[in-house]
């Protein structure tokens, strides 16, 4: 009954969509047409069997990282484990970086093709970027309010920036979160690292024991969650401005610690329309129609 991977060009005739089970990749390569076509072939070939490769070690990948010995063997699995292990002693499993690591692996297949100007692999908000020297910058929209996806600004990543990974996590995202952040966007040198950091920072934006926050054991929601019986956020009720600030403060200190340890380049933390920026965040000037009330940078 299991359906295999599929690929197609999106209606714009340019971007490529790869999908298999929970993985959806939106891929864009820019450059000469034949190089782009070849790059897409590489991506499709790399994607074939990728999910199976991960699933074969899924049980181990759902275990928290401990120590320095990587127990998994697949190239993506190892990358996941390594990215997660940089954040020890935090409680984190390699699954925290799965989206970023998959994006990175497919990007690596794409950019084997010479002549590309730039390329991106967007795995549900966890994005791996490639920029040839002198390439046009990537601009990535940052969504502060999930109900207003056009808001408010864009990250601009230049060819000479060290950033090649951007990831977003939050309580309203697809994965369970231990925290209450609407979203945390992290810019890092690579996508798997950005992915883990975004997950951990979204967890850190939190108000422990706050009565407005409903939590349930992860297992009760997803029986095979890597979070086991950790209480994950299912609903956040009304919060006053002080509570929002307190939660963001907690996330901000965690982000600053990651920045000081050179794990991330920058982060955007969002809760209830309040935004905190940490580190070097190349956020373009918000567009004029941004509701000033929403954005308290």
């Amino acid at each position, binding site marked *: 009954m299991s359906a295999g991977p599929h690929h197609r060009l999106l209606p714009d005739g340019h971007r490529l969509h790869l999908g298999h089970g929970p993985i959806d990749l939106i891929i864009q390569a820019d450059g000469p047409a034949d190089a782009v076509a070849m790059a897409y072939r590489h991506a499709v*070939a790399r994607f074939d069997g990728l999910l199976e490769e991960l699933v074969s070690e899924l049980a181990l990948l759902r275990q928290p990282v401990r120590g320095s010995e990587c127990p998994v063997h697949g190239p993506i699995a190892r990358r996941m484990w390594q990215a997660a292990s940089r954040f020890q002693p935090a409680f984190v499993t390699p699954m925290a970086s799965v989206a970023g690591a998959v994006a990175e692996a497919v990007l690596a297949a794409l950019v084997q093709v010479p002549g590309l100007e730039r390329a991106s692999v967007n795995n549900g908000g966890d994005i791996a970027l490639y920029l040839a020297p002198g390439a046009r910058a990537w601009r990535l929209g940052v969504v502060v309010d999930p109900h207003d996806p056009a808001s408010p600004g864009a990250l601009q990543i230049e060819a000479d920036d060290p950033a090649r990974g951007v990831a977003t996590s939050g309580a309203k995202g697809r994965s369970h979160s231990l925290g209450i952040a609407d979203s945390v966007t992290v810019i890092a040198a690579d996508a798997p690292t950005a992915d883990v950091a975004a997950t951990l920072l979204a967890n850190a934006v939190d108000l422990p024991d706050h009565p407005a926050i409903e939590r349930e054991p992860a297992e009760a929601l997803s029986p095979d969650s890597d979070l086991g019986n950790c209480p994950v956020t299912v609903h956040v009720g009304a919060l006053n401005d002080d509570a929002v600030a307190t939660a963001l403060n907690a996330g901000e200190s965690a982000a600053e610690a990651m920045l000081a340890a050179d794990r991330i380049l920058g982060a955007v933390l969002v809760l209830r329309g309040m935004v905190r920026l940490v580190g070097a965040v190349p956020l373009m000037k918000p567009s004029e129609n941004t509701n000033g009330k929403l954005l308290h940078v």
Partner: protein
Amino acid sequence: MTDETATTMPPATPRPRREKPAKIRCDACPVLCYIAEGRAGACDRYANVEGVLTRVDPLVILDRTVQSGGELVSFLDKEREWEGDIVQPPARFVTAVGAGTTYPDYKPAPFIVSSQMDGVDMVTVVTEGIFSYCGVKLKIDTDRHLGNETATVRYRGEPVGHVTTGEYGSQMMSLGGVHHLTGGSKKEGRATCDALLNLCNRQPVELTIDDGVSIVVEAGKAPVIDGQREERMRVGCGSAAIGMFAQQWFRHVDEVVVVDDHITGVLSEHQAGKLLDVPPTGIKIKGHKSTPGRYFRVAEPGQGWGGTNIEDPLTIIDRFDTKVAWPGLKMLMVSTTGDHSAYFVLDDDLNPVPTEMPEAVRDSVLRVQENCEPALCSVVFIGGAGGSLRAGVTENPVKLTRSVRDMLTYVTSGGAAVYIWPGGGITYMVDVTQMPENSFGYVPTPALVAPIEFTMRLGDYEALGGHMASIRPLEELGGLGHRTTREAEQGHWPVLPHHFSWNRKT
């Protein structure tokens, strides 16, 4: 970030907590998630709705294409890679593929979409129906004997249907239906559901027929019978073949026998031969003579010549009348597809002797082959849009049935035209090859999930008690996943006036 804004169906409504929440295992992809009740799996496409695995993935928007698009390319299909879209301006129709459903459908169908057609406000109610009452009708183009009428058809050893009538150049089979899906053992139900799902999603399915053949059926492809691919559909019955080719034969041979399990034709006795003044040859054929030159049951059904069980065609000839036949008489024997043929010359004792076929005769056999259409398997899904599904469309379900009857509401399945049976209910049939690929899903009850759309004027929708508050304009559904169909014919486009009675001149 930006690409994640694609709208997904609202997650299944959480149920009141029970003491022991049931979890189910999803086998839609290799991850094999366990999904708790009221939750979705890792992909957000499959959810556990009261213990039932349910697809909840983004709507599929069917782009109206003039040329064949076939945009969802099968994986690593090199030939069709990077064709991209050939999409006309945004005349979009929302299909129910992936709409997700609420089962039972006690609340409005997932999407009720309004769009305009020639200035008339139209509404399309999009839902995926869960069909416990459903099956497929198979038409297998072949002359071969697949099995006796009413013989049981099995999938993985389980009974899933039966052989039904023989039709023109083809054998019909009926699979599924409520008795196999839910009336038999659990295993039988599952096997039936699997077989139907794979057939409807255009996968090859191997079926075995009791006291008959093993056959691989794939929609739009040639049947493979006992390992042998059926190339051609018969040009006609044996008698028809005589009529069609008599002109080409009578100058080169004295006699032609077209061997056919149904109606074997004999040129010299056939009306067509008489008209061409073909002299009698004294041939005596076994079997029941029907009208002149037409014989029934010359042999038993089988895998040999013309759907009979014979390998040596001479076995159907009793003898040649010594008073009529003559030494040197030239005879062609050929099957209804031209797949089998042999040429004989009578010796001095009037025994047919196999002889090399002259070129002109060989050409005539090739002509028979050329005139045969490719043999195909046709898979037609049949399902009944029963009570609860209709409730998702209107508060007064019977009004929907009447509205369909009155041709105020046009029914499509995955955007494809359907045939609706006369009589009660909305029992429809649809050719699965006209639908987007992989339009079908299943739930473990077991039952099939199939897309179904009801399109009607806004006023007509209101009149039948539609869920007016749930209507969303088409533009609002932008950013959804979309897919084009192979279906290119303009006439099939669901939102066209000629589908509706209000546009007909009285």
